Structures are given as structure tokens and as C-alpha cells.
């Protein structure tokens, strides 16, 4: 594999109305090629109607060390959870 290859993350929307989901990663020279390979590698069985590719290097991820300050303070704020709403049965993609 050439030294120019970059890692891309692939997101696929399986049908209209749903959001894009991360399905995996691949190597490509550039965005346009990454999109084509995403089509060939991840949609061979009609999995998608829309593809996003993002350079893995462009993703900024939270770290394990962030957990305490990021998430712990939310544990005692149950009023932020929409647990009291009843979802109509027709809504199946929340």
C-alpha cells in the first residue's frame, strides 16, 4: 500500500429518514476515492442510500481521562432525561 494512503471513517445512512451510522474505516488516496471504495466495501448488499467519508485524522475524540469532568456531573440530573414522555407507537426511530 502506498505511503500516500490515508485512513478514512465511513458513515452510511441505510434509508431515508435515518441518520448516518459509522460502519468502519478504509484506506484511500483522497476523498473521492474513499467514497468509491466505501461504496464497494460497505454497500455491496444494498446497505445504504447515502455515504459520508471523513479523514480519521480530522476526528477529535474525547479521552478516557475526560470522563470524570464530562459525564459524572450528569448522573444526579435525572430531570434532563425525557423519561416521562410517552412515544407514539408509530415513532420507531428515536
Amino acid at each position, binding site marked *: *500500500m502506498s505511503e500516500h*494512503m490515508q485512513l478514512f471513517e465511513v458513515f452510511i445512512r441505510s434509508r431515508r429518514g435515518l441518520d448516518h451510522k459509522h460502519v468502519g474505516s*478504509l*484506506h*484511500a*488516496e483522497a476523498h*473521492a*476515492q474513499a467514497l*468509491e*471504495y466505501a*461504496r*464497494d*466495501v460497505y454497500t*455491496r448488499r444494498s446497505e445504504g442510500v447515502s455515504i459520508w467519508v471523513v479523514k480519521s485524522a480530522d476526528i477529535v475524540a474525547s479521552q478516557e481521562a475526560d470522563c470524570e469532568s464530562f459525564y459524572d456531573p450528569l448522573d444526579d440530573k435525572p430531570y434532563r432525561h425525557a423519561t416521562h414522555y410517552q412515544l407514539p407507537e408509530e415513532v420507531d426511530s428515536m
Partner: protein
Amino acid sequence: MSTDNPVSQYAVRLADDALILGHRLSEWCSRGPFLEEDLALSNVALDYIGRARMFYGYAAELSGDDRSEDDFAFLRDCRDFGNLLIHELPRGDFAFTMARQYLVDVHSVAFMTDLQSSTDATLAAIAGKAVKESNYHLRRSRDWMLRLGGGTEESHRRLQHAVDELWGFTPEMFEMDELEKSLAGQGVAVDVSRLQPAWDTEVRATLAAANMSIPEEDWQVSGGRQGKHTEWLGHLLSDLQFMQRAYPGLEW
């Protein structure tokens, strides 16, 4: 093993084109330059095998005897195959495979677009499916022409070599014998002689953009439609047909 029905004969030619090129592409499976391209090439190979099945299936239906698509694919010898020679050339290196694919793809897109208007409804329907595939194949192969042509000194050299080797096999894509002229006159077959100017313009533009020099047009080879093949087809068929030859009637 030939059949008198001209449409069936025409369908067998188109099926042979697809089967032989599909087989050449399938030879890359697990040998691609990297995983993503390996899968992409195998996808293209499968598109061609699927195309071959549809054309053979229709030819079998028209032949009016009890032959199946498998009989056409596995039980005919070289002289009965009517594929264009460019499809049977060994896969070569990656540049050769991609250069051939590009030259064939430009032709296929135009060919299948035209065949969609065939007065034969089945051929038109197969073409409708194939043209979408070929559009995608072309997108890939054109991209590789530019990438290899403008890449390293080695990739440029290999691509130029491939184009030079292939060039004399391209005029055959636009030749027509009596069978095809007659079918084209009835609106069944594509008049391929009309496709050449647009193909030429498109290919020359891409070759220029890929920093390729246009080969000298001082040789050309043809004969595939009449069953006159290169030595490579026999080797290919011995591989492709081995199972049915060694174990006649084998099913699984």
C-alpha cells in the same frame, strides 16, 4: 455448437465478452494491490459474470433446444467463442488491467446506452441494468488512468506500455460483420461503427490528461467475433471450464 437464430448468436457474443473479461478481472481476487481495490475489482468482475448470465440465459431461451447458460459458458471451445480479443488478453499488471478496463468501459457505456433502445425488449432490459454498472466502472477506471498517468515514473511507464500494447485491439470494438449489420438494420443490435468518433474523442482527451502519448496506429488485430482468437483464450478456458470438463454434469 452454434444456433441459427441470429439474435441468439448476437446474445452469445455479448455474453462471451462479459464472461471472458469477468474471468480476467476475477483473477485479481485476493491479488489486488490492497484490500479496498481488491474488493472493488471483484465487484466489477461479478457485474460482468452477472451480465454474461443474462445474455447466455436469453441466448439459451432463443436457441429452442435444451441448452442452458452453463452449456454456453462451459462446453464450447475457443472457435465457438465470439468475444472481442481485447477481453481475453492476460490481465498483466495493474496498469494493464486498468487501461484495458478504461478503453472497454468508454465503449460499454455508449454501447449499452444504445442497446437500451433495441427493438428486442430483453436485450434492452439487460442493457438498462448494464449501463448503470458500466457508468460506475468508467468512473473508477478513468480515475485510475489519471492517477497512474500522473503518478510516479514507474506507474506512468507501466500505463504507457499498457496503452501501447492495447491500442491495436481497440478498432475491433467498432467492426461489424454481416450478422451485426443485419441485426442493426432491424434495430436489434447496436451499430457500433457509429460509436467510434465519440469513443476516440473521449479516450484521446483522457490519455492527454494522463500525460500519455497516443500510440501510432500502425497495427490492428481482429477476428474474435469469427472465433479466431489469441493463444491466451485456450489457457483461460482450460481454467474456466476445468470443472465441467473433468466432471461432466457436476452440480453443487
